[in-house]
């Protein structure tokens, strides 16, 4: 986000008349559509969670519920109003930071989710860092030995790893590193009440490993392809003829041009992780938002479902915009008005 703000700040002071700056215009149009999509998604989520068969309150509480309890739940879910004003009062409360009270836990949704949000953020950030470094290094290795056995075996491994379902990878990881061959790490990542994942880093290792296996192939493929493209271009050939060393070729000439593709694929991976952690978190019973989402859907905890889905959609939409802007920032030629 800071990058985006800096970009607008840096560009704003130079008005250019008719030719608007491409980054600024992109940012404005993408932000507008982003906000619009979030609004539409929130309407869809609100409508979807309340289209239970019959009366939502009865469906949640069951047939034996007392009338007082039903009335209380109806007002809690804004069901005593018309659908439109119900949505509006729900959205108004959410904008003021009130996301309602969990139906199963009795706690406020925010208090329930906040620590899990931190745990998931740690998981996602750790995965993103490890997978990017690993993918870039392996991609560089494969690209510098194009069509050798190293390149071929890395590419096949990447294809296989990227095809595997996340929970199958996670189960294999548990089998190998926690149960059968080695017993180095705990098989589940359940935390005692009030503790965060950084208090027990050894419970973080296996979930991160599983996600890294799933996500790294994309970084690897993208980086390898863009590096090969850069290495076969004319300017690199000129540099080679002038006698530049291999490391200078790689780091000085080819790497800067592969940056855009890398940012794009890291952004994509983050997007994927926003939704994809649910499966891996379930395998490890990792106390994050993915597990919370699955649990809230199983229990039909409507306020929690609404909050989590809208939250994930917001993260998804804005991550997308940040990725696009970051790509434009590192590829000056694409900034030129066409």
């Amino acid at each position, binding site marked *: 986000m800071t990058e985006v703000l800096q970009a607008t700040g840096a560009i704003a002071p130079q008005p250019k008349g008719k030719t608007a700056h491409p980054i600024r215009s992109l940012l404005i149009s993408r932000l507008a559509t982003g906000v619009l999509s979030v609004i539409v998604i929130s309407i869809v989520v609100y409508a979807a969670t309340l289209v239970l068969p019959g009366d939502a309150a009865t469906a949640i509480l069951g047939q034996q519920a007392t009338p007082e309890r039903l009335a209380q739940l109806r007002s809690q879910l804004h069901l005593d109003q018309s659908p439109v004003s119900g949505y509006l009062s729900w959205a108004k409360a959410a904008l003021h930071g009130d996301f309602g009270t969990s139906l199963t836990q009795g706690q406020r949704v925010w208090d329930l989710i906040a620590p899990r949000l931190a745990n998931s953020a740690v998981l996602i950030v750790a995965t993103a860092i490890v997978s990017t470094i690993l993918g870039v290094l392996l991609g560089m290795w494969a690209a510098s030995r194009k069509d050798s056995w190293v390149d071929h075996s890395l590419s096949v491994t990447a294809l296989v790893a990227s095809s595997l379902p996340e929970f199958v990878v996670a189960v*294999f990881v548990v089998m190998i590193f926690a149960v059968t061959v080695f017993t180095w790490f705990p098989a589940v990542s359940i935390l005692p009440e009030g503790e965060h994942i950084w208090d027990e880093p050894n419970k973080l290792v296996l979930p991160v490993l599983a996600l890294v296996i799933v996500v790294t192939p994309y970084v690897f*493929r*993208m980086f390898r392809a863009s590096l090969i493209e850069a290495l076969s271009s004319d300017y690199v050939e000129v540099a080679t003829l002038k006698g530049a060393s291999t490391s200078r070729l790689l780091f000085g000439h080819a790497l800067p041009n592969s940056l855009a593709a890398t940012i794009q694929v890291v952004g994509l991976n983050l997007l994927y992780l926003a939704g*994809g952690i649910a499966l891996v978190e379930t395998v490890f019973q990792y106390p994050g938002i993915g597990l919370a989402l699955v649990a809230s859907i199983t229990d039909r905890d409507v306020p929690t479902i609404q909050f989590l889905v809208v939250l994930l959609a917001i993260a998804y939409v804005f991550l997308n915009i940040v990725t696009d802007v970051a790509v434009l920032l590192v590829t000056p030629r694409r900034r030129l008005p066409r």
Partner: protein
Amino acid sequence: MTTTAEPVSPPIEQGPVKRRGAVRRILRGALATRRGQVGLALTLLVVGLAFIGPFVPSRSATEFSGVPYSLPGNGSVLGTDALGRDVLARVLHGGWTLLLLAAISTALAVLLGAVAGVVAAYRGRVTETVIMRSVDIVLAIPQLVFVLLIVSVIGAKTWLLVLAVTLCQAPQVARVMYASAQDICERDFVKAVALWGVPPRTVIRRHIMPSLTTPLAVECGLRLSFSIILIAGLNFLGFGTQPPNPSWGVMVNENRLGLATNYWGVLAPAILLAILAVGTNVFADALARVAFGGERGEETAAVTALELTTS
């Protein structure tokens, strides 16, 4: 009847012939590559096992046959699961629903997505805006979260699962087909046919669709492998096939706690799912390579994913 049927019949005959030719060419090309052969072999191995499995004489898949988590031996090849049911029998019976649901939802998603994308490209104006903006909005929710949201509305029903997977895959197909169709719709032969007064539906079906069989075939492959992974994942989370019915995803979840005692309850379905996912994905990759050629084909997985998330 005969007089009106005659002028229409030539395009009817031409369309399908052209279409079958293109698909056959891509399939043959994919099968000539090592990846295509390996992918198809792996896929057929698991598909064969899943569909022949229920007819193989074995113990009951839902009745208790021994002590929970007992090890292989004593007449049961892979031991028993968390409730003491025979693992081998459950593995043999637990594959076909997944494959059937994945095939149905892929077919529906490709059909719906292709129609939506091509109609949007051909019609333009309001139709285009409405279709493509709805596609954007569906794609702005993470796939798995979207399916979970739909499932949370009514509960885990089989038809709902198919519908959810279809609705979440269709926008991706729509976006690819829209991009491919835009170019075709501007071609002279399409405009000429439209000027002849041929109704839009016929123009799309007889004249635009046959030119789009290549991206369509690739999308079928990609979507099938995504659908399999998605449905298996939903089964694993408990939102698909309901116990006591056997399903590989459900088995992985049920027997997770017994990993240290009898790991076959998890390992057998997990290995089959892994082989199936790798097989379909490798085959889809081979299709994409043949369809779009060499280096470009190699990045298809990443590139299509890119096209899908960045608008």
